[in-house]
């Protein structure tokens, strides 16, 4: 017994060093699986407050660019207004209400919640964006985040008044996307290769898809976080794979990740239903496979 105490005393520094390393490794591996850090809620709240103080100062520097983006977005949305479209037949009146359910039995599937960006990085391998809107204001994990020019990322952790979104500029980020012009609306994941914050990558695109430089990439219909047809970017280069069976597309992202300040968080009212159905199906298949 005495020897054990002597041993601990002699190697006290080494032992505490090893314990700290184990804490770090567990924390990293836990976070890379679930994106739930130790004390993440409390820590988010504190870093959120500091981030928003800092953002109060720096937001003036990008004001011109942000205003321009918002004006363009307004213009685009105004062009979508129903009142701009004249129906050829006066007996047909299309009415779309903003209520959850309206008299024509149309259901509202998505709601957009405005949020301010208070923290952002672009130069790391895994970049995250802090937003000033949290669980008290209706944000949940896995909701999509939409910027003025295109999609920005996905919410990964939420505290009371702040939330953290995984930016598209993250090694772990995957968003289901498709070519806007393609007839078969072929869907594949858009990723980031860690190279340039302006460019995203779409790998393993089948050669049967007709794609050329300048084509638009939009979100597909498969993701429960995003509505379809949201802008992601435009194709800049089309390369053949090493094996030569598929294409790798390099995409210029529509969002400028360095200057985003105002975003919309997308609430899918059917998310829980879709997610539950998906996971039940997966479980069912897993069980069948075991038998």
């Amino acid at each position, binding site marked *: 017994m005495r020897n054990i105490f002597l041993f601990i005393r002699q190697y*006290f*520094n*080494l032992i*505490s*060093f090893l314990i*700290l*390393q184990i*804490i*770090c*490794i*567990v*924390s*990293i591996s836990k*976070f*890379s699986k679930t994106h739930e*850090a*130790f004390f*993440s809620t409390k*820590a988010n709240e*504190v*870093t959120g407050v*500091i*981030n928003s103080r*800092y953002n109060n100062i*720096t937001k003036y520097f990008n004001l011109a660019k942000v205003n321009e983006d918002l004006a363009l977005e307004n213009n685009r949305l105004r062009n979508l207004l129903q009142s701009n479209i004249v129906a050829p037949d006066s007996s047909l009146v299309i009415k779309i209400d903003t209520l959850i359910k309206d008299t024509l039995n149309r259901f509202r599937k998505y709601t957009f919640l405005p949020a301010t960006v208070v*923290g*952002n*990085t*672009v*130069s*790391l*391998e*895994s970049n*995250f964006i*802090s937003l000033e809107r949290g669980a008290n204001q209706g944000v949940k994990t896995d909701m999509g985040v939409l910027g003025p020019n295109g999609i920005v990322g996905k919410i990964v952790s939420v505290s009371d008044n702040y939330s*953290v979104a995984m930016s598209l500029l993250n*090694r772990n980020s995957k968003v289901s996307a498709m070519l806007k012009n393609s007839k078969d609306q072929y869907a594949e994941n858009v990723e980031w*290769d*860690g*190279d*340039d*914050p302006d460019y995203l990558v779409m790998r393993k695109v089948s050669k049967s898809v007709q794609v050329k430089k300048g084509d638009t990439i939009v979100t597909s219909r498969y993701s429960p976080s995003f509505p379809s047809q949201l802008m992601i970017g435009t194709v800049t280069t089309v390369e053949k794979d090493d094996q030569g069976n598929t294409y790798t597309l390099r995409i210029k992202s529509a969002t400028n990740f*360095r200057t985003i300040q105002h975003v919309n968080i997308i609430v899918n009212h059917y998310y829980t239903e879709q997610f539950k159905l998906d996971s039940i199906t997966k479980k069912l298949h897993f069980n069948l496979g075991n038998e």
Partner: protein
Amino acid sequence: MNSIIKHIFRLVIFLFVQVYILSNVPLVHHYITPYLYFLFILWLPFSIRRWHLLIIGFSFGMLTDYFLHTPGLHAAPCALIAYLRPFLLNIFIAKDSTEQSFTEPSVRSMGWGPYSFYIGILTFLHHAYLVFIEWMQFGTFGYFILKVLATTVLSLVMIFITEMLFSRKTKSRLT
């Protein structure tokens, strides 16, 4: 007391520069990531206890992690350099002469040669361990080697500039 306030002030400045400035600089290439925050640990005084140094290094890394949303990634290399720092200092300085007359590691207290070795070795170890953890999650062996070298060179240049800009007047204890 005065020195504690000075070190807390340094902690805030290093954290601020790393989180709000260096992490938002557009990259030249994705192998080159600017890191400067760990210089805080290298600048801590000689007299600090090894056990305290370890805890301070770990907490400082974790604090950085909570701002960058990568829990553990920076805390692990910070704990490593905090653990190895006393061994290196023992090798590079004559114990009774320097430690009694100066408070913290600097060019003036250690001399150009030993100080640059001390900084160089710990910077390299910090980056090697950090990129190694990243490599475990993604990337290739070439990514690991090139990123460690490129990032170390950039960090050393930044530390050199910092030393030039803020020449710390480490007071001699005897005066």
